[in-house]
């Protein structure tokens, strides 16, 4: 693999260019399904799988794809991959599929996927596209899980409830911390608040880090600081 290496790609996907936090792509699932950790986990996993596979396929076929027809081809590839993932969910995680409902087929419309195909996979090798898909997908999935966990904790006072939808077995209540919670967190406004808090937190961390770097290099700090 050429530069940037695997760890750099991972850092870009998870943090610097996180599809949800920075590019603000795929907001519909970020906001809609993250009412609990298990939902965020399930959809994050499905999106990750589609993203890796679509990046790989687009990169593998990039020599034959003419610019004029690239968008229909991306749509074809992504739509068929999503259909496959949906069938796999229906077969192996039926209750999770029921709980996520329409949002699994709607992965097709997640701009994060077509954006990676267009920006990255169509111009890079298969292996680095796979890594990029993995990094971006993981960044997206972790964001969904974090928001899901936060909203579940705040809204229902539980964490990791209903994980049986993934692993099978009896319904699990997860870690019950309190009985009931702040209802608003589970409702749609809670999704916006949580996302806003997450973005703000990321910006604060980034700024702190930048300031520290600038302080470490006093010569450059004078020129770049405003």
């Amino acid at each position, binding site marked *: 693999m050429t530069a940037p290496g695997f760890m750099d790609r991972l850092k870009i996907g998870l943090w610097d260019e996180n599809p949800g936090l920075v590019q603000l792509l795929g907001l519909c699932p970020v906001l809609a399904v993250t009412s609990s950790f298990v939902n965020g986990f399930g959809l994050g996993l499905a999106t990750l799988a589609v993203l890796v596979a679509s990046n790989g396929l687009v990169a593998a076929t990039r020599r034959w794809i003419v610019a004029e*027809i690239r968008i229909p081809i991306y749509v074809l590839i992504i739509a068929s991959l999503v259909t496959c993932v949906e*069938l796999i969910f229906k077969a192996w995680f039926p209750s999770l599929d029921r709980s996520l409902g329409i949002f699994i087929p709607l992965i097709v419309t997640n701009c994060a996927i077509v954006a990676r195909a267009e920006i990255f996979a169509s111009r890079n090798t298969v292996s680095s596209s796979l890594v990029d898909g993995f990094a971006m997908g993981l960044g997206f999935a972790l964001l969904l899980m974090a928001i899901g966990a936060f909203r579940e904790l705040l809204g*229902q006072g539980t964490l990791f409830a209903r994980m049986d939808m993934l692993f099978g077995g009896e319904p699990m209540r997860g870690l019950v911390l309190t009985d009931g919670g702040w209802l608003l967190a589970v409702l749609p406004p809670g999704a916006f608040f949580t996302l806003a808090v997450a973005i703000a937190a990321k910006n604060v961390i980034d700024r702190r880090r930048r300031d520290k770097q600038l302080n470490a290099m006093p010569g450059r700090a004078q020129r770049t600081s405003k």
Partner: protein
Amino acid sequence: MNNFSIVKSGVTLAVIAAICTSLVALTYQSTEERIDANEKAWLERSLQPALSGLFFDSGVTESKIVVPPPHDLPGTDAAIIYRVYAKTEPVAALFVVSARDGYSGPIRILVGIETTGMVTGVHVLEHRETPGLGDRVESGKSDWVKQFDGRSLVDPETSGWRIKRDGGQFDQLTGASVTPRAIIKAVKETLIYFGTHRDEIFSDPPTDSAATEDQQ
């Protein structure tokens, strides 16, 4: 773009479409059986709450009748009736109907009724009620639906088929009265329908050979 490149693009598109289609077809074939089994298991599991305490030997899912709208049952979509028999004696009927006036959209419920007109169980199958408020009608979240067990149109009288706040005999849910009202009304309407159509519903029991596999 000259003619040659148009043909070339067309062929590329066709080849990729063919590859994608075979990918989907392959996945479909390898998951089809599992998905069918899951659907059937889910259906049987979701009918279970209305079957407890009944003795029967017929395959419940095979005895399905679909009642297309318009009908006198609750809901504007098709209602489904599963009939339960012991030998050829009718035991109970399970109704899948929609309570129209939920807080956000219809609530799909299962109502089990014994031939005597007594409710065997009510179970909420699908809803979009507010999490934390209306969704406590789900059997996993509270025991609210249990209060229908053993009720009938004479227990309480028709006027008692309301929440307590409206002068009836059924508990309400704190912070949510629309959802319980909708469900109570739907159960009551189902009981009334059962009372008037009982013989018709049980008139043609599925025989083993005639048991038809219903497709969704």
